[in-house]
């Protein structure tokens, strides 16, 4: 296929063009989902091997704070989805307002998670306390980095609030939300 043919059929991303936002963000999203999926798989297999150690580790976590964070992140995802809806309606000011709400709630998620870490570290818990805590800190820390990165992406697209940019930022943000929704019960609640 020649370059001219590609141009005629789209931007050359093929079926990825059907997805909202920049196709490149979806390459990243699917890569991240695979990485988090493998990580969570390793966690549940390790729990099956060391059930007593993992039960003791889980009992030391603050599930209420993590539950609160679920509500915070879900609400942030809703705000990002509203921002996309506003951008598509050419309501840039409303889109920016929703993005700011999404970012503020993302900041609150980070603050709550850091409070949780501080509480755990204050009780002498660390990366090397047990295999449970090694995986717990790595998994939640990796996710927390994505929350931070997501806020940065939302801040970048907020400036112009154009449809493609907002769709791209929101798509990444929803991936971060989706991963937490699955990660929360597996780490904190499943016995």
């Amino acid at each position, binding site marked *: 296929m020649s370059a001219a043919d590609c141009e005629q059929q789209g931007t050359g991303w093929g*079926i990825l063009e059907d997805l909202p936002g920049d196709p490149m963000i979806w390459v990243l999203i699917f890569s991240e989902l695979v990485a988090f999926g493998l990580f969570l798989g390793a966690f549940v297999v390790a729990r099956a091997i060391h059930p007593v150690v993992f039960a003791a580790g889980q009992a030391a976590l603050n599930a209420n704070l993590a539950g609160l964070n679920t509500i915070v992140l*879900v*609400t942030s*995802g809703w705000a990002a989805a*509203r921002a996309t809806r506003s951008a598509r309606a050419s309501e840039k000011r409303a889109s920016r307002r929703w993005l700011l709400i999404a970012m503020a709630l993302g900041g609150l998620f980070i603050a709550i998670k850091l409070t949780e870490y501080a509480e755990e570290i204050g009780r002498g818990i660390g990366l090397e306390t047990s295999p449970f805590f090694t995986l717990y800190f790595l998994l939640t820390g990796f996710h927390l980095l994505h929350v931070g990165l997501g806020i940065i992406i939302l801040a970048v697209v907020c400036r112009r609030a154009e449809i493609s940019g907002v769709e791209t930022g929101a798509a990444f943000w*929803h991936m971060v939300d*989706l991963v937490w929704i699955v990660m929360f*019960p597996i780490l904190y609640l499943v*016995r």
Partner: protein
Amino acid sequence: MPGRLDITWLVLIGLALATILLPPLMPRPLLANALLLVLAAIKGRRIALDFMDLRAVPALWRGLVSAWILIVVLVAWLASAVVALI
């Protein structure tokens, strides 16, 4: 009048509260784990369809994200079942 996004948000909040409140009321871990993971799968699918906007895209993309959710929760449940049954 709330739109689909608002309804999805309210459903997600309700399911998040159920995730925290219901399992302690269920004495059998296998059932409690199944409930937790089914709730997670429902929440994940609502996020994929309504927030990620995959409802309107080709079924391949919905299928891939749904398969990810299903595989992760299924593996988590099977691993917890193995521990409970040993």
